[in-house]
């Protein structure tokens, strides 16, 4: 395998962790919507923090660092539209995901508190889990990742 192919393999591995972690977070989040008890909500949101978020974090760093190396190795220009737009969207996805995650953390804390106090679902917890702003931020982050994938495949401006 050439250096280019090694770098591409590692870049794609990062992308699988990044987007796959996002998909796993989305699935677990949707399951938390349908949970019947606060202890279940707390568990599902904790799994996002312990499994999906680390995958997203490792994947995001890998895609950026190896992606920039790949641009240099393959002889692309850093000023090309798809390269700089992908980098800007990478920052946007991270910012939206981090902000959305803070809403989920708040829901997780409330779910854990209710789980210790009788484990009965309340309207407040359901509203926190289904908060439109928090979910829009998290799923907006996922959509931004999709846009990055589109840029990486179509390479507009190349």
């Amino acid at each position, binding site marked *: *395998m050439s250096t*280019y*192919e*090694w770098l*591409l*393999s590692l*870049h*794609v*591995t990062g*992308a*699988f962790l990044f*987007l*796959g*972690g*996002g*998909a*796993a*977070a*989305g*699935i*677990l989040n949707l*399951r938390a919507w349908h*949970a*019947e*008890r606060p*202890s*279940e909500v707390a*568990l*599902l949101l904790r*799994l996002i923090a312990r*499994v*999906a978020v680390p*995958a997203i974090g490792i994947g995001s760093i890998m895609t950026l660092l190896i992606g920039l190396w790949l641009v240099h190795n*393959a002889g692309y220009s850093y000023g090309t539209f798809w390269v700089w737009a992908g980098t800007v969207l990478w920052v946007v996805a991270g910012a939206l995901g981090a902000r959305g995650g803070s809403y989920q953390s708040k829901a997780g804390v409330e779910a854990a508190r209710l789980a210790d106090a009788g484990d009965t679902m309340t309207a407040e917890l359901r509203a926190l889990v289904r908060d439109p702003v928090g979910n829009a931020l998290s799923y907006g982050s996922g959509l931004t990742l*999709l846009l990055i*994938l*589109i840029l990486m*495949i*179509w*390479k507009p401006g190349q």
Partner: protein
Amino acid sequence: MIAILRPHSWDFPLFLHVFGAMVLFGAILATTTLSFVGWRLPEVRAVSRSTFWALLAGAIPAWIVMRIGAQWAYSKEHHQLFEGTPTWLAVGLGVADAGLIILLLATGFAFWWQRSQKAIAGRVVSGLAVLYLILLAVAWLAMSGKWGS
């Protein structure tokens, strides 16, 4: 330098294939996580229920998108970029097709698990999910690194 040589008319099939594969990986990651949590918390029904839905509503539709994209891309690239079946393609096709069997078995066992709450069903799902995660990683490494080309 496949990306440089590839005509734009091949981009959409490739996008479907890669996007489907990434969502499939995420769904199997969620399945693996949930099924292992089920070992520790067998009394929490949400775990087995969520495992079943992650497979049925996440992994299976993603597999279909991935496989349609793969076949479409193959029909465009075959005879133009490669002849015969290079190693990377054989690995990808093998994992995709064997993966469907693993996926259907895992979904069947997850259904049994959520209905019966039998621990053995959850453990079989864990084993199948870990196996599929490993196979998916081998497939993306082989296909992106163009093994044997």
